């Protein structure tokens, strides 16, 4: 009889939380591996255009970014409102693009240099004049693989509207 009484008194054991840190660490490592540190502080407006025919950029280490757009309002008193190029963390002239790209290419391991891609992250409101000048600079620097950064559009109709 004594046995039975004891059994009835036993409560449901609490759920063990000992593995919680492990779960969280797993999540943490997942995020550390899949994400990239925000490299630059954007100083230009950057709303990417929409497109449907887009390809993913593989190998982040082989990609060089160029940001183009009108300076954000807090920088307008210093550099004006005309669209500018941003290389790393500072505003630059179009003539700086070539040397910058060459420098970036030097940093890449020699065998992989031909695979280098320049990603042009331009604001959709800029005019083609500045983009063309950048493209000429890239041609002169022999950086011929480029990628026009854009956001995926849901459908083709998304592209036709407000045109």
């Amino acid at each position, binding site marked *: 009889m004594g046995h039975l009484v004891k059994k009835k008194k036993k409560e449901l054991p609490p759920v063990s*939380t*000992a593995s*919680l*840190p492990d779960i*969280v*660490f797993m*999540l*943490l490592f997942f*995020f*550390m591996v*899949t*994400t*990239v*540190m*925000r490299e630059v502080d954007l100083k230009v407006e950057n709303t990417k*255009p*929409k*497109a*449907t*025919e*887009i*390809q*993913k*950029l593989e190998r*982040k280490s082989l*990609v060089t970014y160029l940001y183009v757009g009108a300076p954000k309002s807090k920088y307008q008193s210093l550099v004006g409102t005309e669209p500018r190029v941003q290389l790393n963390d500072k505003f630059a002239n179009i003539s700086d693009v070539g040397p910058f790209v060459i420098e970036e290419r030097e940093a890449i391991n020699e065998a992989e240099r031909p695979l280098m*891609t320049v*990603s*042009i992250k*331009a*604001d*959709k*409101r*800029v*005019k*083609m*004049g500045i*983009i*063309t000048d950048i*493209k*000429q600079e*890239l*041609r*002169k620097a*022999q*950086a*011929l*693989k*480029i*990628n*026009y*950064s*854009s*956001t*995926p559009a849901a459908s*083709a109709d998304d*592209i*036709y509207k407000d*045109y």
Partner: protein
Amino acid sequence: MARNKRAIPEINAGSMADIAFLLLIFFLVTTTMDVDKGINRKLPAWDEEEQVDPPKLKQKNIFTVLVNSNDQLLVEDEYLSLDQLRRKAKEFIDNNGDGSCEYCRGLRNPESSVNPGKAIISLQNDRGTSYDMYIRVQNELVAAYTELRDELANRMYGKNFEDCGADAKKFIKEVYPQFLSEAEPLNLG
């Protein structure tokens, strides 16, 4: 003696989860998840000297797309809206005027391109064209090629171009090579 025997108290691991959460939140905030995507293009190599003898191309093999500073399209000398561009471009590439492309299903219009291997799309924009419009036009022209390649892949292999094997892709690319040339921009206003 008893004092020596006393075990060192275990470190409390209860706050481990909190520390890990803190780290997790830090990484969530400082990192970006967005994968970089965009339209891949290849620029022509820079030539110091002017090309002495530019390759002669028949006018019917060139599909001219002009975009002016008001973001209006002029395609083959006629005004066109953006949603018609893809169909027009496909008709032009797939035209197959000389019948040498056995996989094409074009209209075989003698005034249009002779075969996809010779068909060239020439895009010219103004310096005042908006980048948004330029990307839209680029997108439509690339989409025209993608659709043609997909159609062929579906007819021959029953799947989309992207899902085909390397050999099949190579073959389809030979049938529909992508010729998209960009002229120096004008400054017409």
